[in-house]
């Protein structure tokens, strides 16, 4: 099969934008229109290709919108039960320390049901990378309240708006993990504009480089939009991200050892 580059070369065209080798071709994305999951996937795939680790990477998919993540990458994969991806990644990595093992998890998976696995993988300094998509809702199950849902935010299980009195406060995962000595690299970025996307890619690349170098546990949180369950279009969602989400979850590098 010809690559995009070969096809374009044959046609006398200069390729300026192609699919990374780490992404499957001709597999339709299952995500909703306007969702930033495909962008996050692409950034991961670009980083794997640029670091030359596609053929030795294992992706641990989680439960939620990204449950089918293994379909979209050309790397080996394991599908984990809800919240357990860091434990599954630990099992793979402890058998094959030469593999690059990363999990791809949403906020319900990582910060609610899987909080114990997340914290303990971090505390152990497990040699894995976690890509954490935080959009503040349970997307796959149709918009329920997540541990990261903002105060006042309406979801299908907080129809009057999230109340701190009843359901407590949103969890800042990066601030929490930054206290653990086992964490080597920790950053939060977002995907709402090209300048942020470039930053996010740099953070992902650094996190994977940490694992390649055997420097320990890395996590990149990517603040994402969910137009479907924020009940708005993508442009409105980008505005909400700037106005409401970023003040709650400030961007930046939390740990870099």
């Amino acid at each position, binding site marked *: 099969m010809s690559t995009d580059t070969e096809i374009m070369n044959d046609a006398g065209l200069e390729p300026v934008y192609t699919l990374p080798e780490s992404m499957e071709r001709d597999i339709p994305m299952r995500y909703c229109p306007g969702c930033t999951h495909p962008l996050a996937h692409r950034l991961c795939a670009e980083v794997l290709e640029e670091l030359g680790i596609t053929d030795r990477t294992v992706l641990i998919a989680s439960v939620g919108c990204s449950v089918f993540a*293994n379909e979209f990458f050309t*790397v080996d994969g394991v599908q984990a039960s809800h919240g*357990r991806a860091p434990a599954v990644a630990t*099992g*793979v990595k402890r058998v094959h320390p030469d593999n690059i093992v990363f999990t791809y998890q949403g906020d319900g998976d990582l910060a609610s049901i899987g909080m*114990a696995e997340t914290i*303990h993988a971090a505390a152990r300094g497990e040699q894995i990378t976690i890509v954490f998509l935080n959009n503040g809702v349970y997307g796959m199950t149709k918009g329920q309240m997540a541990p990261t849902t903002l105060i006042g935010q309406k979801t299908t299980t907080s129809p009057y708006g999230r109340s701190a009195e009843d359901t407590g406060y949103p969890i800042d995962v990066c601030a929490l993990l930054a206290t653990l000595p086992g964490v080597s690299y920790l950053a939060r970025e977002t995907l709402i504009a090209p300048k942020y996307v470039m930053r996010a890619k740099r953070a992902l690349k650094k996190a994977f480089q940490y694992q390649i170098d055997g420097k320990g546990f890395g996590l990149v949180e990517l603040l994402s939009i969910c137009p479907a369950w924020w009940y708005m279009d993508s442009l409105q969602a980008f505005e909400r991200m700037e106005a409401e989400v970023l003040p709650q979850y400030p961007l930046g590098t939390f740990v870099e050892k």
Partner: protein
Amino acid sequence: MTERILMDGNRATAEGAIAGGCRHFFGYPITPQSHIPEHMSKRMPEVGGVYLQAESEVAAINMCYGAAATGAKVMTSSSSPGVSLMQEGISYMYGAELPCVIVNMVRGGPGLGNIAAAQSDYWLSTRGGGHGDGQMITWAPWSVQECYDLTCEAFDLALKYRAPVSVLGDGILAQMMEPVVTREPLPVEYPKPEWSVGGPRNGRPKRVISSIYIAPEVLEDLNHRLYARYAQAAIEDLRFEEYGAEDPDILVCAYGISARVCQTAVDMVAAQGLKVRMFRPITLFPFPSAQIATWAERVKQVLVVELSMGQFVEDVRLSVEGRCPVQFSGHTGGVLHTPEEVAGILGQM
């Protein structure tokens, strides 16, 4: 080189696993099996393996799931409440067709219960393993030697059937000491299965381990595949032992530690002239139904002795299918039968 060593059932289980080629252990402390992770934490570094204490049984079974996805010989051990927590992970192992050895040194339940010996996880092991179709191939040792031998062989069994295998002991077997004859260790290197993920790819297509089957027909196919393997195991890997009279009037069915008690009781009543035979399944799932059915044609009565309110007895009744009366004697909560008690029941049958 083989040796004869005095050890407890926990250590025998751990050493059997190492002899069977297991080099990855993930576990969590719980009485009465904590000597297994303790022993593994010492021995795994000595044999070039991996020992890791998980943050919970939930994490431990999922670490096993990840390691099993690579085709590694991996195990965890726990006791009843901990195995309850592992049920979800075991179900995912059924769904993803992953081999793993899961040791349960059963203690008294329900709830926190106590740390005494019980057999009340029979259903948990043979019927449980979480939601959905799928059952655990279950082996029940009755001696410290069998803890060693069965655990040693369980890894290849799990790989053969791409399925989790349960070694079902109890709080007494775990802690009592008997001499064990060790085996020549199996080779640590073996060809990794063609489905395993990770390791060097060398240009092979990607592999994915998953338990998602969105299309109903495909999921039904999976379940048929699992049960075809169980049917194969019922023919090729069914183990049981018999003891006592050749032409019995009574068949006593017992497994594990209860069978040790019953063996003594059979001897006691034989001295009184009663013709009793003991049938001891080693494989609890698949169940040796045909063998029990054959005996049920020949005996007048069947007695089932177990340490539960009546779990194993259901499989015996399903096998007997009304051919003769089935009497049940159960103790629970950590209370044991004495040989005299079982002999007394046999004497009154």
